[in-house]
């Protein structure tokens, strides 16, 4: 991407992100006025989006060659364990990322 294209993308993302926050204030006067389908979708989607974003992070892993995704999977499992154990987002991020850095720099 050129710099101009990047600026366009950032501006579009800023507008779209603001739109998700602004729309309810434009459309509805009360919470009760929201259609059932929209409310239900709002309960259903977020969990699926979380799963989707995790897979998104693994999209570039080369499963068939190289290290076969081993460092990514091991660091991912460590991340899950640390998070289940301590439930501290920042500890999880630090340990998970350090683990991955050590694995790709010194082990694989």
């Amino acid at each position, binding site marked *: 991407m050129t710099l101009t294209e990047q600026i366009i993308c950032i501006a579009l993302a800023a507008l779209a*992100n603001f739109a998700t926050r602004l729309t309810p204030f434009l459309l509805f006067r009360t919470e009760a006025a929201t259609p059932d389908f929209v409310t239900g979708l709002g309960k259903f989607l977020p969990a699926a989006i979380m799963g989707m974003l995790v897979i998104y992070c693994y999209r570039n892993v080369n499963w068939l060659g190289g290290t076969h995704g081993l460092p990514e999977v091991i660091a991912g499992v460590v991340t899950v364990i640390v998070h289940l154990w301590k439930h501290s987002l920042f500890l999880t991020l630090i340990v998970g990322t350090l683990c991955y850095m050590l694995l790709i720099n010194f082990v694989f």
Partner: protein
Amino acid sequence: MQASPPATHQETVRFAFNSSLPIFFGYVILGTGYGLYMHNLGFDFWFPTIMAAVVYGGSVEFILASMLVQSFLPGNVVLITLVVGFRQFFYGLSMLKKYRGAGWRKFFLIYGLTDETFVVNYSLSIPKEYDRYSVYTLISLFDHSYWILGAFLGGALGSLVGKQIPGMDFVMTALFIALAVDQFQKEKDHLSSTSGVIVTIACLLVFGKTYFLVATLLVLVVEYAIIYWRREKRGTKNDAD
């Protein structure tokens, strides 16, 4: 009993600042991770700083950063942002009443409606002597500045180190894994989470790296529509009984 006199401007700022403090640590640390992540993708420090100021959405900015180093697909950017930010729509719904009557400050309140600011402003009980719109607005602005500060620090730290740090990019993966684990533990059934994972893998295999997110979203909405439609049908049948 005598009513307390209205709080001074200074007292209002102090109250808002104290209420926003828990977010300070969270945003500065996560923001630093985000700044470092962007540095590692090859961006100067002002890129994460400006994006933190303008886009202002944690997950959205990580994803956006990763899309900025791919080919130019503006439609994709808009759709992914809308979907990743979709939950914020429901924060807005919950704040309709609280933010009504805020006047010119409403722009800042809505612009700053992130997950964390929503949680603080939604659950905050404000003593009568404070003007609640001022408190909400100040908290929103404080939180926003913490996020910008964190992104700047991360970007600057990256520039100081100079070269890219191999493996730093895993911070985004770790973030989404942690959020997914939280979600998985608090939900009653895992239909949605497991659908998210399975549908995304299937779409990645079928459609490839460029279009799989968009395809996944469409499939998920269709899946929900089917669930909704079946539930409606069952509901009307029960009513007839």
